[in-house]
């Protein structure tokens, strides 16, 4: 029981770290970026390339993936995305799906269509037991890293000067600009960090799931479920939602495999009927 619970938490944590960047762009910048998964894919493939071809140690790949995806995000934000902030949501959807198609074809061209995997270093494989449960070392590693990241993000957003500026820029960009806050730069940095987190999620994901060119589309639904159930106004919302979904998914498949496929979707529809702004959202949406 506890074993399966821990598996679910680890899976939820992974979903969170993959989706949190989308929460930042959607909730804070009100931009629907369906190409978010492409940044995660970039991080994942970078890790695969570095480990398989250059023999870079796994732990060094994680920050590399973050930086690579963040740089990619920054580049695209400066050249393309910033033209889209004042367009309609539908235009944003069309644009970002276009990017996804391009990213999928490019990865396919460079790596081929088959699933790519990495072999984790020995110290991250194996299992540990405690309290009668056993968990894979790597899943424990994911839980710890993602937990730290979630806490760190929350602190940055609520307790630092950058966080308060960002919230000001989001609440009313024009006034914030008038107060001397460099809104353009804050958005660019936020976007880059969001993309970087996706890249980091992708790199961490290589240890549990495998990567192929359809990754951005395959996981897009999961990202959207996490942020819509969690609400987009906080970091803790999607965090709790991701864990809830991960645990429900794993427990459901374990105890009632016949309806396993329905569980996540049913939870999402129920949550959205009862609380249209998400389970953990503060008050009504803007």
């Amino acid at each position, binding site marked *: 029981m506890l074993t399966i619970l821990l598996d679910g938490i680890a899976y939820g944590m992974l979903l969170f770290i993959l989706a949190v960047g989308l929460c930042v762009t959607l909730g804070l910048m009100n931009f629907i970026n369906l190409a978010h998964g492409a940044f995660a894919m970039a991080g994942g493939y970078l890790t695969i390339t570095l480990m398989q071809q250059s023999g870079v140690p796994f732990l060094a790949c994680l920050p590399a993936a973050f930086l690579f995806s963040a740089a990619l995000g920054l580049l695209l934000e400066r050249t393309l995305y910033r033209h889209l902030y004042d367009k309609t949501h539908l235009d944003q959807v069309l644009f970002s799906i276009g990017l996804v198609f391009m990213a999928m074809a490019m990865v396919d061209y460079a790596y081929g269509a088959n699933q790519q995997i990495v072999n984790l270093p020995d110290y991250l494989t194996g299992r540990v037991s405690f309290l009668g449960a056993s968990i894979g070392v790597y899943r424990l590693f994911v839980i710890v890293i993602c937990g730290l990241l979630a806490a760190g993000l929350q602190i940055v957003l609520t307790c630092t000067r950058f966080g308060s500026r960002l919230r000001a820029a989001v609440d009313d960009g024009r006034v914030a600009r008038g107060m001397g806050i460099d809104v353009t730069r804050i958005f660019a940095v936020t976007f880059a960090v969001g993309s970087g987190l996706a890249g980091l999620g992708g790199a961490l994901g290589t240890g549990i799931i495998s990567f*192929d060119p359809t990754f951005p589309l395959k996981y897009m639904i999961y990202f959207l479920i996490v942020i819509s159930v969690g609400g987009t106004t906080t970091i803790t919302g999607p965090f709790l939602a991701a864990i809830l979904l991960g645990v429900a998914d794993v427990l*459901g498949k374990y105890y009632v495999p016949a309806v396993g496929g329905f569980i996540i979707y049913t939870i999402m529809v129920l949550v959205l009927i009862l609380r249209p702004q998400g389970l953990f959202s503060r008050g009504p949406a803007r």
Partner: protein
Amino acid sequence: MFRRQILKGMAGATASLALASIPAFVAPAFAQETVKVGLILPMTGPSASTGRQIEAGARLWMAQNGDTVAGKKIQLIIKDDTGAADQSKRLATELVINDKVAVIGGFGLTPLALSVGPVATQAKVPAVIMAAGTSTIVATSPYFVRTSFTLPQNTAPMAQWSAANNIKTVVTLVSDYGPGLDSEKAFKAEFEAKGGKVLETLRAPLMNPEFAAFLQKAKDLKPDALFLFVPSGQGASLMKQVGERELAKAGIKIIGTGDVTDDDQLNGMGDALIGMITSHNYSAAHESPENKSYVSAFLKANNNMRPNFMSVGGYDGMALIYKALEKTKGDTDGAKLLDAMKGASWTSPRGPMSIDATTRDITQNVYIREVKKVDGQLYNVEFATIPNVKGSN
């Protein structure tokens, strides 16, 4: 009015667009000495690796055997159906009507093949199944012929081997779709007929990135062995999680069909797989001169991509088409080609194979293999052969 003006502009542009695109839509003139072969494959989407392997196999056959047979030039046309059945059907219709192909082939997944059946029947064009493995497909159209394998064909030997090698209880875990259920059924029937017991039949959703719950359940049931089946191209994530859960340490043997230890991905799956027993119709490590030259030519032509069982489906599919054309002396009449295909037999890289004259399904050897490290690379090393297993009855 604003609306009316939009429409005016729109209709004008549509007209010019439609006219401009006519030349592109008209099929090229049908040259007399050319025989066209149309392959409908998933070249994008989740099953893309299947399409790539088959295309590479088919092209390799043509590179090795020339593009002329019985005085006719063979032209290969590849179409991407993205893995959607309505696309397969439409592309099959267009290939038959517009390109006037003599043979269609490919079909990456069972529903894709099933949707094409009525087209083949109506147009009287032979359709060579080079991938899809559900046993019932071939019976749905008199023009279907198969050069891949069927799931029961590959699964039953695994059940026999398990029963004979001191495995008493098994949990099965398969992908929840046609071939997966086919495989589950064949294993359970054969294994229980031989006195074993299947404790639980687990089915994972087809598009399922997370297997933790299923694997943990299998581990908790403490069977002697866990039988696995997932489609080609999806074994990597399953095997990664199998390794992570340390089932082998818990005394559970990992067995399955060769789809899981797909040669295309096997080498990247890691040393955790060493010792896994599978049964299948093809391994890149098959010991024969035909296979040696096949593998080395394939690696050379495809940037070191290792050929898997899908690639031999494409390779042998082209071989069958060549043999049929030789026999009809270049006559492309569908019924004559089909007759020429029935009963054909030859030695393929996978070993001896033939097309059953009555069922039109494939008869071939099935091998029991163990994952081993050979020269630093993981291979499925064959150690037992079950000769001439029929594809369907």
